[in-house]
């Protein structure tokens, strides 16, 4: 079947779907109400956090002999102490918004409740689902999670919470999660989840390091034994849990063979109406091998620099830079001059050029 035929069939098949009016007034009303609710929650959360901070400060002043700030904590600012989670719980969230979840539940990023058999928390750059727990379906297979709370909206600082399914199967309830919602003090940030491909999927070594560095953390990379198929990369502190801004996060690479080679380089614009030296430029670099079995993307910074970890092999290196080809839907408008071969343990430098005519 040709692609054009399929497109035609898809279009024809929904021709008969009745047209309805978009409920814009209702959407605006609900959206505005949610914004108001979030602002109120933020005020209450801030007040609770302030009380906790004041309490912690008072306690630390009473015991000033032991108040020396840890060496790894820039500033050692006592006024930005982390609120203490309830007993047996830990904070997990996105950006500075966290909820309390059981200490023993691992954070498994980017898998949308289709991972381990035990309960866990899943997380993306903008979303947390708490309480994923694959269930036995009537036909004997495993089905979806039974209860989850979604924490979203890192970009806006607010979030919505929803609890689906039976509450009997979990100690967590909508109320307990709502009550635990907390905004971290200004000196704290949750360890980001670095999903590749526009913010979804399991983080790779490359994407996790990029996310951490983008959030201002100092990164130390270490090799580690394979863990499970859902977590090629873990961190300490754990992804989604609070860490001091600017502190050190250790990234454990559990798939060392799959990331033992390194490609690095710079994205540059060349040519144009006033040709001269190439100009470094930000953009997105895309590295792919011949059969598409390895396909990774990384952002080049403002200085055009990028770095990506891969299995040994031969790769085409492509890129998109803002305004260059992307409006026309051409996501691989820029490229390196030739395919690049890189061996295990080797780091190869390759520059990528966007040729302006």
């Amino acid at each position, binding site marked *: 079947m040709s692609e054009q035929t399929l497109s035609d069939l898809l279009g024809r098949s929904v021709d008969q779907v009745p047209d309805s009016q978009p409920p814009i007034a209702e959407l605006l009303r609900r959206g505005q109400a949610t914004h108001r609710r979030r602002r109120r929650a933020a005020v209450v959360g801030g007040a609770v956090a302030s009380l906790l901070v004041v309490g912690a400060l008072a306690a630390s002043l009473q015991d000033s002999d032991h108040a020396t700030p840890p060496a790894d904590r820039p500033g050692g600012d006592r006024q930005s102490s982390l609120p203490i989670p309830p007993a047996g719980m830990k904070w997990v969230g996105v950006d500075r918004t966290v909820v309390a979840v059981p200490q023993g539940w691992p954070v498994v990023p980017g898998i949308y409740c289709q991972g381990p058999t035990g309960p866990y928390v899943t997380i993306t750059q903008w979303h947390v689902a708490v309480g994923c727990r694959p269930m036995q379906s009537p036909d004997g297979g495993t089905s979806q999670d039974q209860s989850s709370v979604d924490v979203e909206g890192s970009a806006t600082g607010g979030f919505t919470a929803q609890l689906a399914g039976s509450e009997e199967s979990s100690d967590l309830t909508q109320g307990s999660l709502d009550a635990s919602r907390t905004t971290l003090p200004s000196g704290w940030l949750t360890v980001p989840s670095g999903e590749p491909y526009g913010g*979804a999927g399991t983080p790779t070594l490359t994407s996790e390091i990029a996310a951490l560095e983008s959030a201002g953390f100092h990164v130390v990379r270490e090799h580690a034994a394979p863990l499970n198929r859902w977590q090629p990369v873990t961190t300490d502190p754990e992804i989604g849990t609070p860490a001091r801004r600017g502190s050190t996060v250790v990234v454990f690479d559990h798939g060392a063979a799959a990331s033992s080679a390194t490609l690095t380089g710079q994205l540059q614009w060349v040519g144009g109406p006033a040709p001269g030296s190439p100009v470094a430029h930000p953009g997105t670099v895309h590295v792919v091998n011949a059969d*598409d079995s390895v*396909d990774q993307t990384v952002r080049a910074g403002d200085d055009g620099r990028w770095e990506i970890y891969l299995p040994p092999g031969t790769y085409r290196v492509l890129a998109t830079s803002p305004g260059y080809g992307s409006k026309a839907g051409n996501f691989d408008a820029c490229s390196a001059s030739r395919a690049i071969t890189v061996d295990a343990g080797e780091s190869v430098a390759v520059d990528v050029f966007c040729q302006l005519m």
Partner: protein
Amino acid sequence: MDHDAEFSDYAASRWRALVRTGVLLGCDVAEAEDLAQQTLLRCYLKWSSVERAADREAYVARLQLNLLRQSRRRRWWGERATDAPPERPTADGTGRVDDADALRRALGRLPEAQRQAVVLRHYLHLTEQQTAEATGVARGTVKSRLSRALAVLAADPDLAVLREGRK
């Protein structure tokens, strides 16, 4: 133009496509309208992210797919297996409805991931890279999903009748 006005324009322009995408992803019309409404509400709440998104269509498609996943997770609890498939509404006898039904049945036989790739790529006309971003997989995975899906659809007897035209 203020936030609400920009959002209103966007919602009005995207409503029809969102509803129809929902139908092609397996919702009935009422569910598809609910899904479109939820998607637009998320857009409203995250409007600054929508505006800043490097690729707005891929970003909104991802929101819609995530909400669809969530709604199906919840809906599972209200459903139980039966010995026989549930009765479905029959076509009303017109050729156009038959055609639509045939295509939706053919799409329904595809694995969910392949179905999503087909709808995003060939109905919404997203690029492979946009489809990859919306579905959270590599571009190569999108390619292989589309390739397998097209092979399955090409062999589907109901669709063969459609392609050749009804006698």
